[in-house]
């Protein structure tokens, strides 16, 4: 009974404290809104990603169309990133479900998922650190940058830099890029299938990612 009374008395205090904290804390959505940032949400259509690899028999590839995540950038992005250092550091988080990457052969998919420890690491993740412009200020169309970010596969994170293009059209942002990596850098053993198809360590990840402003609730 006593504890119940204390609990009831404390409720207004908790609510008040929470409201105050909303007012003083830099809650990202509010801050971002006041800073004029736009949240671009990944779109279920139009994206694609691909892994190209080699083997002792023939080249192979796995493809998917599911790229989740979001980007928070200023309203002038990506043009603003050519001249403004702050604008070249948008918040970008990307997620690709491992299971959504498929080759023509289920055996290959099964082995790759096993090597990537899919049950425990369901997504390939990427977080952008910064963009370095390669296009000249005032350029139009697909703007070129070097993107430095953290790629996480099988729970292993590696910072890398890759060339990307970013294009804004009809309100949507389309980001495309590719990077060569080694599977073993992320603790992934190159899959062997049927006891004779041995994949090479080097692979190329390429993607096209489509985002659009998140509609107002």
């Amino acid at each position, binding site marked *: 009974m006593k504890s119940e009374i204390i609990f009831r008395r404390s409720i207004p205090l908790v609510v008040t404290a929470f409201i105050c904290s909303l007012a003083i804390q830099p809650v990202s959505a509010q801050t971002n809104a006041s800073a004029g940032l736009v949240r671009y949400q990944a779109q279920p259509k139009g994206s694609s990603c691909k892994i190209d690899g080699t083997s002792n028999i023939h080249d192979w590839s796995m493809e998917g169309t599911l790229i989740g995540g979001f980007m928070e950038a200023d309203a002038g992005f990506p043009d603003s990133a050519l001249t403004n250092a702050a604008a070249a550091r948008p918040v970008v988080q990307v997620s690709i479900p491992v299971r959504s990457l*498929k080759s023509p052969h289920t055996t290959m998919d099964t082995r790759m998922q096993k090597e990537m420890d899919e049950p425990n690491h369901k997504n390939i993740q990427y977080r952008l650190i910064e963009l370095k412009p390669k296009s000249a200020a005032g350029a139009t169309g697909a703007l070129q940058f070097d993107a430095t970010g953290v790629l996480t596969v099988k729970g292993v994170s590696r910072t890398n830099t890759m060339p990307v293009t970013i294009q804004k059209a009809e309100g949507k942002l389309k980001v495309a890029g590719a990077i060569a990596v080694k599977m073993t850098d992320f603790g992934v053993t190159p899959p062997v299938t049927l006891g004779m198809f041995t994949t090479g360590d080097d692979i190329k990840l390429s993607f096209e990612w489509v985002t659009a402003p998140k509609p107002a609730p």
Partner: protein
Amino acid sequence: MNPPTPDASGFNRRDFLKGGSFATLMAMMGGVQLLAPVDEARAEESKEPKFKLKFGVIGLGAWGREMLDQLGRTPEAQIVAVCDHYPASLKRGGSKAPDAAQIADYKELLANKDVQAVIVATPTHLHKDIVLAALAAGKHVYCEMPLAHTIEDAKAIAMAAKNSVGQFFQSGLQMRCDPQRQWLSPHIRTGVLGKPVMARSQWHKKQSWRVPSPNPTREIELNWRLDPKLSLGLAGEVSLHLLDQAGWFFLNKLPVAVTGHGAIAHWKDGREVADTAQVQLEYPGGVQLSHDVTLACSFDAEHEIYFGNETTVMMRDGNAWMFKEVDAPLLGWEVYARRDEFYKATGIALVAGGSKQTSLTGGSSSAFPFPPLYYALDAFLKNCAELNASVEDFNTNFPGGDKQALKEYLASAARPTGQEVSPTATAAENVIRFAPRQDVGFAATVLAIKANEAVVKGRRIELPKEIFELA
């Protein structure tokens, strides 16, 4: 229980030498054996279940119980509920799945959120209401064939399946999932038969079809196959699998006409449904399938023969042999083949999943020891799991339920489910992934309905291609 794999440990040096000698002898005789790769990948995948799919089985007659038996072999299948409105059937079927809830009303089973997939094994005329309710309840559905006893009901089922999003529907054409046929299909389509000439198939089994019943009400329920208003007769309830095979397996075409004849040749117990029937299917180009089916005698049981002007393939009991014409070109692989004698002909064994050396010793070496139903249910399980994974991945990344976007994603992400066997994929991949979907089930059901109509009327019926289309 996992599917057994070829027992390599039982193959010793003596077997090897014996096989080698046999191979040499066959090479000298000009015979050959065609061998599919052993499905090591499948065997490895089967070692331990990666997932569990929770099943409900509706309809616990003889076939429903057979399905429970086959599901029991599959480690990924977890039977959580069984359903039959007749208490004795429910109890009997329930004994095969002791951990499953026993439910009399299928609506109660469908309301169970734990049930992810249902198997509908009720009498044909009861399929529609149950399948539509199951799809509406968000379940994956395996529907026995024929889908329905009328074209309208079959179309309603197939359209509901087609319009469902994130649910896998498989029609019970289990012979399309038979590894032997899946392995042989691309082989035949390479043109090894030469020009297709004709096909012949039969199903002979002496049995009444009339089931003893404790009372008149149960008599009507049990013996629905003998009610011409509800039953598609022998052509629809038995022959449809063999009729479907000729189009899919042999010619890859739909028939343009069907002719039928039926008679009550033996079981003169007042029944109105023929116990013996002949069906003739005509295909584009003039090739015909001649099929007969009877409950009056068992001689020669069940087999199919696909005749070509260069070779002929015969299938019996899940095995296949090829018979070459003397003027047929040398295929090149004959030197390794096992041969079996059939009266005055010598058949070259076509063995799916066989290992070369063990086959040469004459032992059974099939990597696919179970009936086609097992592989059909296995394909259903794995396709449901893959679909579940795709839906989960989509919803995790794009919460909010954009159903159209999900539908488009699933269409783009789908692997061979429901597609034709890929000749470049291994047999294991094809077996696991290939499954007849609603469009194939609808076309086979239409064919069964029209074949039965031809038998009942004793005449020829043309089959315009539009009748098979699921518009």
